[in-house]
Structures are given as structure tokens and as C-alpha cells.
């Protein structure tokens, strides 16, 4: 019995040492699991969602983490992302309120996948599903402003984003400038006046005043400090 009592711990230690050594050898041979390169099968989200028995949101999270790994793996290799748009569609259908797959997914599609149409479609779907979130119309505005250089489309989306709660301070400023650039000086003036009235920030106040003066002088009606004082409460 004593001999048997000693044999088991000895075998246990030997097994542990053996498994550790084998794991190290497998690592050297590159036998570890490869980084995720894609999905063998991505089901249609509308069929998948009911089958998840109420765990659709956590499934969307796990798929989003896999998407990030997928993008990382392909950025380091072939820089091709054939399944990205479909995977993002599945993740956002499973959880339409999950903002990050729309925002970062659109960036991946646009700048890595070179699929601008898919990126815009994704952001538009997100904006429709989350009408109270400023981020998605903001990103659409940025896309049209920077990539397409379509001021009227950028204005359309930024104007929408500027009315939503939590939007950044600079958005009304961007909207006012775009109105001035698209030749709608009256609306631009109104927006600068509104910004001047509502902002608590001294820099923003002086900027708004400067723009008001610039617009007025550009349209043949220079605004003095007193006049602006009477106009602006």
C-alpha cells in the first residue's frame, strides 16, 4: 500500500512534466491554433436570432470580438476582407443597438476593405436603428465631407447629428461653416448667432462673433461690436 501511495504522486508529476514539455515542443513546431482567418459558414442573422434563445446580444459581442481578430489577421497577411461586410451585417442584426460594429466596422470597410458602399449602407442602417445616437449621422457626415467632398450630403447628416443629445461641441460650428460654404449665408448666420447665445465657452463665443462679423461684412452689411451686442443677448 505504501509503494502504491508513492507511485501515484510520482506518476502525476511525470505526467505534468510530460504535458508541459510536449506543449513547449508543439509551440516550437508552430502547432498552436492559427489566428482566425474567416468563417466557414455565416448564417443569415434573421434565422440565427430566434435560435439563440434570447442570447442574441452576447452572441453579437462574441462575433464582434471575432471580427476584430479577423481584421487583425488579414491586415497582417493578404489585406483582403471578403467576409467582413457579411459578418458585420450578422453582428448588427443580432444586436441593432450595438454602436461599435457600425462605427469601427464602417472604418474597416472604408479604409481597409475599400468597400465604401458597404460602409455607407452599414452606417445608414445603424442611424435608422438608433435615431437617438449622434455618432452614426456624425460618421456619415464625416465620410461625405472628407471622402466624397459632397458638402450638401455632409451637411444633411451633420445637421441631424447636431440636434441629438451628447453631440460634440464642434458639430454646430461645422454645420454653420458648411451652410456658409454652400452659399446659404442667412442660415449660417442664424446658426452662428445661436451658437453665440448658447455656448458657455469663451473661445467658442469669440469664434462665433468673428464668424458673424465675417459673414455680415461679406454680404455688405458690416456689424459693429455695439450692433452685435444689441443683436446678441
Amino acid at each position, binding site marked *: 500500500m505504501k509503494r502504491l501511495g508513492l507511485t501515484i504522486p510520482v506518476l502525476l508529476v511525470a505526467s505534468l512534466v510530460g504535458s508541459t514539455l510536449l506543449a513547449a515542443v508543439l509551440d516550437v513546431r508552430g502547432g498552436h491554433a492559427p489566428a482566425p482567418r474567416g468563417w466557414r459558414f455565416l448564417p443569415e442573422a434573421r434565422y440565427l436570432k430566434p435560435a439563440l434563445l434570447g442570447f442574441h446580444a452576447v452572441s453579437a*459581442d462574441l462575433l464582434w*470580438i471575432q471580427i*476584430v481578430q479577423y481584421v487583425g489577421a488579414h491586415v497582417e497577411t493578404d489585406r483582403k476582407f471578403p467576409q467582413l461586410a457579411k459578418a458585420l451585417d450578422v453582428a448588427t442584426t443580432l444586436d441593432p443597438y450595438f454602436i461599435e460594429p457600425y462605427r469601427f466596422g464602417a472604418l474597416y470597410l472604408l479604409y481597409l476593405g475599400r468597400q465604401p458602399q458597404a460602409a455607407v449602407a452599414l452606417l445608414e442602417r445603424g442611424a435608422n436603428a438608433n435615431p437617438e445616437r449622434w455618432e452614426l449621422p456624425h460618421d456619415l457626415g464625416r465620410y461625405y465631407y472628407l471622402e466624397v467632398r459632397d458638402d450638401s450630403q455632409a451637411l444633411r447628416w451633420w445637421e441631424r447629428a447636431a440636434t441629438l443629445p451628447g453631440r460634440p461641441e464642434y458639430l454646430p460650428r461645422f454645420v454653420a461653416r458648411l451652410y456658409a460654404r454652400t452659399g446659404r449665408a442667412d442660415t449660417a448666420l442664424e446658426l452662428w448667432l445661436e451658437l453665440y447665445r448658447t455656448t458657455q465657452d469663451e473661445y467658442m463665443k469669440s469664434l462665433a462673433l468673428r464668424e458673424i462679423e465675417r459673414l455680415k461684412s461679406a454680404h455688405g452689411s458690416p456689424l459693429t461690436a455695439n450692433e452685435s451686442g444689441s443683436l446678441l443677448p
Partner: protein
Amino acid sequence: MKVAAIALNAFREAVRDRILYAILVFALVMLAGSTILVTISVGGEEKIIKDLGLACISIFGTLIAVFLGIGLVSKEIEKRTIYSVISKPIHRYQFILGKYLGLVLTLLANVALMALGLIGLAYLWEGTVSPRLVLAILFIFLELMLVTALALLFSTFSSPTLSAIFTLCLFVAGHLTADLRLFAARFGGVLSKAAIEPLYFLLPNLSRLNLKDQAVHSLGIDGGTTILSFLYAIFYIAALVLAAMAIFHQRDFQ
């Protein structure tokens, strides 16, 4: 008093079960593991932690409810301890009610532990705890109470293995009833609609007790619907426990 004594005894018996601790430890490890998982995500960390935490409470709570619930009555019959119980001056319905409440107490202790873990993590991550999160956990607990009542019902007339299969099948069906009705309305003929409509009301509608999306995304919760869903669960649980009592009352232990 007799019901309370049986409930406490069932609770003591359940907390001695090693499987309970295995499930609980695994759930807590999973909860803690979610903080590591979010490090490989891009954005949405708070959401992922809450989603994973709520899923952990729901999945592991269901496992506890099923695997402890199926043995509530059948174990007593198998071990023949039921004879000493029914020979005592207690009613059979008291025995069933006591057993059910004992397991609900066990579930409450487990869900409270897991909920504390999740609320603590949410607080560490966000610096605040949304009341919606607490409400979602309460509704998960209600769902677990319903699953326990299902397991108890099957435990009164079938073996533990069959009870587990039946309970898990109804758990799955309970999450699909709304989709089943939608499917019948869209694609079904008159006959399938007629068959599915009573089934829709007979099967538990567990999607009514799912407030996870509202908790995680801070979506609006309709007070009236929430109260009605709460009452629905209570009525359904009462029906299941009463059915278990009726079946147990009819059983012959000679």
C-alpha cells in the same frame, strides 16, 4: 410552519450538493473572465461585460434550476425517504410547496452571488449601476423560478433524466413561442394557425421575461408591460406548482 421546515430542509440539502458549487465557481470565473475578454475587443467594453454577466446568470442559473429541480421529488422516491415523509402528519401539497420554495431559496442565494459579482464589475467599469440592470437580473430570477417549477412538475411523475429532457425542451420552446406564432401567421395555413394558437398560450413565453437588451442599452422600459410580465410569470408558476401538487396527490406510494 411545516412548509417552511420542508423548504429549509430542501435548501440545506441543495447547498450540500457539490454540483451546485461546481456550477457557481464556473459562473464566477466566467464573470471575472469577461474583463480579460474585453481587452481584445475594440470599444463596447461595458456592454460586453454586462451582456456576458447577464448571460452567465441566466445560463448557469438555468443549469442549477434544472439539475437540482429534477431530483426534488424523484430522489425522495428513489431513496424511499418519501414513505417516512408521507407517513407524517403533513399534506402532500405542503411537501411539494416546501420543496419548491427550498429550491427557489437556493436559486436566490446563487443568483444573488452572481448578481453581486456582475454589479461589482459594472460599478468598477462605469462608476455607476443602472436600476435597469437590477431589474433585468430580477426578471432572470423570475425565469429561473419558472424553469424550477417546470422541473418540479416533471419530477413528480417521471425519472430525473426524462425530467431534465422535458424541462430543457420547454425552456427552448419557451424562447421560441413568439417566433412560432409569427411563423404560423406568415406562412401557415388555417390548420397550422389553429394548432399553434392554443400552443402559444399553453407554452411559457420566456421572451416576455427578457429585459437584457433594455438593461445593457439603457432602452426605455414600459412600466405597464413590465408589471404585466411579472404577473404573467407569477400566474404561470402558480399553475405549474398547482399541477405538480395535483399529480403528486394522485400518486400511489403503496
